[in-house]
Each structure stands twice: as C-alpha cells, then as structure tokens.
C-alpha cells in the first residue's frame, strides 16, 4: 500500500466526531439552528450541558438569578458562543495530543486551531466579508490533517522539512512530494468521514490554494487561508513548518489584507485567545472532582 493510501485509510478510520458536534455543525450549516433545537441537542450530552450551564452562570455572564436549564443557558450565552464552546471542546480533545511528526507540543495544535478560528472571524469583520459559522468552523478545523499525519500516521517530518527548505517549496507542497498527499487534503478526508461536507470541507481542502476552491467555498477558503497565515506569522501553536508557506497574493488582494489589518487581527486574536484559555481552564477546574 502506498503512503498516500495508508494516510487516507487512517483518516477515514479515525474516531468519529461526537454526535452532538456533528449535529450542531449540521444545524448551523443548514442555517436552521434555533435555540430550542440546539438546547435539546446539548441537553443530551452531559459534559457539554454542564459546560454550557457553568459558562452561563459564570461571573463573566453575570446572570441575575441562577440559570438551571440548558435552554436558558443557551439563550444567555447565545447560539454562536454555545456552538463555539462545543466545537472548541471537540478540537481540544483531538488537538490536545502531541503531534510529533510536526514537532508540535501537546496543546500546540489546539492553540493554532483556536487562534485560526478567532482570526478568521476577526479578519472577516475587518474586511467586511462574511463572518459565517462555516468560516469559523473551517478556520478551526483547517489543520486537523496535521493531526492525522503527525499523531496517527506519525510521518517523519525530516524528509518533508528537507524538501521544503532545500528546494524552496512551501511545506504543503513538500508534503505532496514526500507523502503523495498534503495536510489540507487529509483534513478534508477526515471531515468527510465525520459527515462534515459542503463549504466547511471545501474551505479546509483548499485553505492553502483558495483560488482552486469551488466557487461557493472560495470566499471562505480565502478568509481561512489569510487567517491561517496571520496566526502562523505570530508563531501561535507553531511547529517545524514555521513560516514556510506561500501566502496567496490573489486571496490577499481580494480581501484587501493590508499590514494594518494584519496587526489589528493579531491584537484581537491574541486577546480573545487568552480569554478562551482562561475559560477552558475554569471549566476544566470546576469539573475536576
């Protein structure tokens, strides 16, 4: 079996996405989400229901009286933050692992993913583009292919590194040379196996070549691409690949990403990432026995 086939098979057989997250992503992608339905879905998942209640009752949300039902909690937090909380939990569970092949310390891929999702949203706001839930989700999931390659297949990144740096190829191009597949394609296969298709999957698939994305997914692929480059620039959750990527000039032109925008997005992203880290810590501490 070729390396490419082994990788694809691993991605397809990876542990399934928790049903709650799959259903929430489905609801949001169909633009059909309403508080009742989301609350109903969350109420069936004890860990997430507990987190949503904890967040709704936290000092930051300052409820006037204690919130005891999941529906009240979702209403207090808002659909958007509720979904983000659940999705961050999914990524934290998977991306909290060390990704040895990419020289990523435990938690580094989570840091990158969380920051990239925030940056995708901030960039959309700064450039007046569509800050849809799909953009956030694609931003969050863009590098999950690295988890498959680096953690589950444990590819040796040394030859990839060598091809990338000695032949002046971008890192994902070097992945294709050495492995016959890159982390963007692997990520899309993983999402497919999780039942996540459409714009989110296509944006992840083409996040390094947004101009090749199907027309419908192209605007989000561009945002995800640029946001990923910005987060990478600051080295947030960075690994052996460093800054060895080629930003797409056409995507950056289309989005009118100027240096000022890059700095603004970085400032906003790092500060929101810090709040998210605190929230994650609080939620995990309060659930400890």
């Amino acid at each position, binding site marked *: 079996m070729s390396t490419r086939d082994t990788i694809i098979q691993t991605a397809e057989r990876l542990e399934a996405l928790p049903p709650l997250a799959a259903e929430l992503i489905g609801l949001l992608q169909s633009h059909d989400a309403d508080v009742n339905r989301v609350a109903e879905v969350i109420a069936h998942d004890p860990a997430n229901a507990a987190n949503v209640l904890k967040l709704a009752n936290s000092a930051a949300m300052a409820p006037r009286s204690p919130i005891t039902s999941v529906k009240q909690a979702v209403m207090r937090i808002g659909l958007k933050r509720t979904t983000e909380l659940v999705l961050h939990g999914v990524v934290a569970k998977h991306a909290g692992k060390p990704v040895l092949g990419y020289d990523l310390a435990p938690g580094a891929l989570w840091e990158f993913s969380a920051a990239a999702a925030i940056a995708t949203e901030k960039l959309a706001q700064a450039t007046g583009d569509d800050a849809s839930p799909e953009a956030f989700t694609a931003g969050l999931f863009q590098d999950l292919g690295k988890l498959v390659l680096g953690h589950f297949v444990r590819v040796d990144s040394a030859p990839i590194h060598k091809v990338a740096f000695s032949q002046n190829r971008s890192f994902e191009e070097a992945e294709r040379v050495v492995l016959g597949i890159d982390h963007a394609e692997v990520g899309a296969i993983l999402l497919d196996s999780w039942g996540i298709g459409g714009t989110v999957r296509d944006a992840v698939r083409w996040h390094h070549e947004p101009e090749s994305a199907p027309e419908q997914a192209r605007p989000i692929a561009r945002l995800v691409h640029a946001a990923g480059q910005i987060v990478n*620039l*600051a*080295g*947030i959750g*960075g690994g052996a690949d*460093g800054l060895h990527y*080629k*930003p797409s000039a056409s995507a950056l032109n289309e989005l009118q*990403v100027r240096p000022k925008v890059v700095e603004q997005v*970085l400032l906003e992203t790092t500060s929101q990432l810090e709040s998210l880290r605190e929230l994650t810590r609080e939620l995990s501490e309060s659930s400890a026995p």
Partner: protein
Amino acid sequence: MSLVTIGMCEMAVSTDTEQTLVTYSLGSCVGVTLFDPEAGVGGMIHCMLPVSKTDPEKAKARPAMFTDTGFVELLNEVLAKGAQMSRLVVKVAGGGAPMDSAGRFKIGERNYAVLRKILWKNNLLIAGEDVGGTKPRTMRIQMTDGTVTVSSGGEVTEL
C-alpha cells in the same frame, strides 16, 4: 537547573545562575536577550508587534507585546537589577516572514528595524543574531554565563 518559559508578549529578568530562560516558536516576533556577565543579570523578551502606537492601551497593560515599549521595559529592569549599560550583551532572534510574501507580512522586518533603532539610540550593539527567513526558532539563554542558543528543526546554533 530550572527552565523559565517566556510566552509571546512576555518578558523575564533573572539573576539566578541555575535558570535558563527559553522562548518558543518565534516567527515574525522578535526575541531579545540582554546579559551583563559581571553583574550576572540577564533577561529575555518575546515581542509580537513593532510599535505601541498601534494600541497604546494594550501597550500600557502589556508593554512586552510591542518591540518599542517592551525592549525599553526589559532594559530598565535589567539596569534596576544592577546591570550596566556598557557591559550589556544583546542577542536577537526571529523577525521572520512567510515565503514570497511581497511585503504584505512585513511585521518581522519592522520588529527588527524598530529594535535596531532603539539599540542605536542607547549605544547598544547586537553581539549575535539569527533573524529573517521562514524557519521557526526557539531561543535560550543560560544564566550561568549568558550563553544564547537558537534551535530550529533539530539544529542548535550558538549566537
């Protein structure tokens, strides 16, 4: 021997010969170390953006976020701990940029330029540096003797 990690937008000053200060994943950010071998005082900073005028409020709360306010803060702290300006050894790492970015992501270059300007104003020279390019860098300073190393992709270089 203890390891003190300096996160992004953070700094630390030390006089403890048992310590090694380390900062990981320098991309376009700049890492700077200062060391006075006679006083045994040193410090390290990891700055993200070049100038504090981008967000003066944030700069007040977190000077290490910006190269201009951050470096001055680091300098003042090492001097306050007994270092002398004339003996300070300055080393720099980071300031990278993605491939073919055609000036769109110039943060690294600007971080380095701002730092050089402040160093020049203070009559400080750079004794060793590893800046620019696309590789990720980890920077360390050993407080025993001020040895600074930069590691990237398994290679370790002494500055």
